């Protein structure tokens, strides 16, 4: 009997920086979860209120480059809008991604943001369907 794969995110160790990983039953789930892991580098995603949404579109020649583009688009939106995001939706079609991020302006007192993310790297970069039929999306981000 197949065991349902839960969508989860986590961090993994990488020297001076930090690895982010999303796992889920679909590639879209894995992309959504790894985005939550990105927020988790800065603050607890559950503490971010979804008061505003930002739309993101990217296109890249491979799943892995698309993941880096997605994460870097979020880093850019966080930096220029001075926002944090606590919820994400992703739709993937061939080499294109359409995503929505919901969040609010940074509130240092409430979010206690630990560190800003400079960018997503190609280190430990993986987008793969694993044998037990779930997807993993991960890379190291520079902080």
């Amino acid at each position: 009997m197949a065991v349902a794969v839960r969508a989860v995110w986590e961090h993994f160790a990488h020297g001076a920086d930090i690895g982010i990983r999303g796992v889920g039953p679909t590639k879209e789930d894995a992309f959504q979860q790894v985005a939550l892991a990105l927020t988790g580098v800065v603050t607890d995603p559950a503490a971010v209120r979804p008061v505003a949404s930002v739309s993101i579109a990217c296109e890249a020649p491979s799943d892995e480059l698309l993941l880096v583009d997605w994460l870097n688009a979020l880093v850019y939106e966080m930096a220029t809008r001075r926002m944090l995001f606590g919820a994400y939706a992703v739709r993937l079609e061939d080499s294109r991604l359409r995503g929505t991020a919901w969040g609010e302006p940074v509130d240092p007192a409430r979010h206690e943001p630990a560190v800003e993310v400079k960018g997503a790297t190609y280190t430990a970069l993986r987008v793969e369907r694993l044998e037990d039929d779930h997807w993993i999306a991960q890379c190291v981000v520079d902080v």
Partner: protein
Amino acid sequence: MDLTLLSRKSDTEWWIEPHGPMRVPGVIYASEALVREMDAKVYEQVQNVATLRGIQKASYAMPDAHWGYGFPIGGVAAFDPERGGVVSAGGVGFDISCGVRLLHTGLTIAQVEPMKKRLADDLSRSVPAGVGSVGRLHLDAVEMDAMLTGGARWAVDRGYGTAADLERIEERGCMADARPDEVSEHAKKRQRDEMGTLGSGNHYLEVQQVTTIFDSAAAAAFRLREGDVVVSIHCGSRGLGHQIGTEFLKRMALAAAEYGIDFADRELACAPISSPVGEAYLGAMRGAINCALANRQIITHLVRRVFAGVAPEATLDLLYDVSHNTCKVESHRIDGRARPLFVHRKGATRALGPGHPDLPPAFASIGQPVLIGGTMGTASYVLAGTAEGEARSFGSSCHGAGRSMSRHAAARLWHGRDVVRQLADRGILVRSPSPRGVAEEAPGAYKEVTAVVDAADRAGLSKKVARLEPLVCVKG
């Protein structure tokens, strides 16, 4: 790292002998203990850098080397444009021209001790730090381009500091050949409101005291005495540099096939120095160096304003400003002939030896001040460049302690408020908007900086001049 993979040349020099596609050897400068502690990935990355086209002499790792992306952090590599040399965005890093500057306060510990709390409070209020913080300066398109071209000189022209400061900054405060037109609108937008901000992570502003002098002649030239109080600023090119790094990593990765570059690791993304992508990166990266120099110059101005209010007798002269994530064209001797090389230093500090023409006159006989950052609870060091450093590492030394523990592990082990309290008990006042950030940056999460500096000294990369210990630390 497995020592059996290395040839030991001395107590502090270890070689990865060229094998497979390596064009030059890998050379690691560190004590045996530091080499043992180094991640196996450092070996892999030093080896991978040694495979890049046009690399000269060796792929070097400094004593604080650790796993980076593409290049190790603490990596130095020089490329000859006439021998197919490349430039690599990963070889510079995301925080382009991140660096350290040190200011003399002209005050002693006895003078500063009673005003420490007020200094901590006023500095943390005056210098924007942390995620989402903005500076008081907002650049329009014309001023952005002027800043990217002019660096610290641009800042001085607008009243942030004095012309005397420029003499004490690498490149005299202005990196030549910057190309603002190669800096994307995204990068500029990310920077528009971030001038004069410290950032977060391992960046800091510290008030420190000189606790030990190791070399009295060099200390005299650097005007450092035991009991003196100095200010150290550690930050970089903020969002602009991060965005340039992000964009060019991708552009170089995508263009590699076009240039016939097949790298061992996608993170090594690079382009021939004379290619359109290589030239565009160099122009943008030089703009980011100017951004970092301008940023540290503006923060210096903010620090001076605080001291003027708290201790009007303070002088705040600049000792020196170093950058530790750069690629610069420098003249180095290869096979007995001086050649212009593109020297990448990623988490490594330039360390010019005595007599180098680029040194300010005050340091001509001593060598360049090499500023090594520590952590909130430990020490920082001032070293000086050596004559032998040129031959050993293209005139380069270490840049800091390097982490020994992940952020995640540190945040599980410590609570930020406890760290702040424990440091206060030791007389170190920490000001940060983020307790979790403080926990992740807890002194225990870093390697012992003294071991790193001792290894750099013993390896002849730079010599120890003074040890500095923190009194006040403002973190993002």
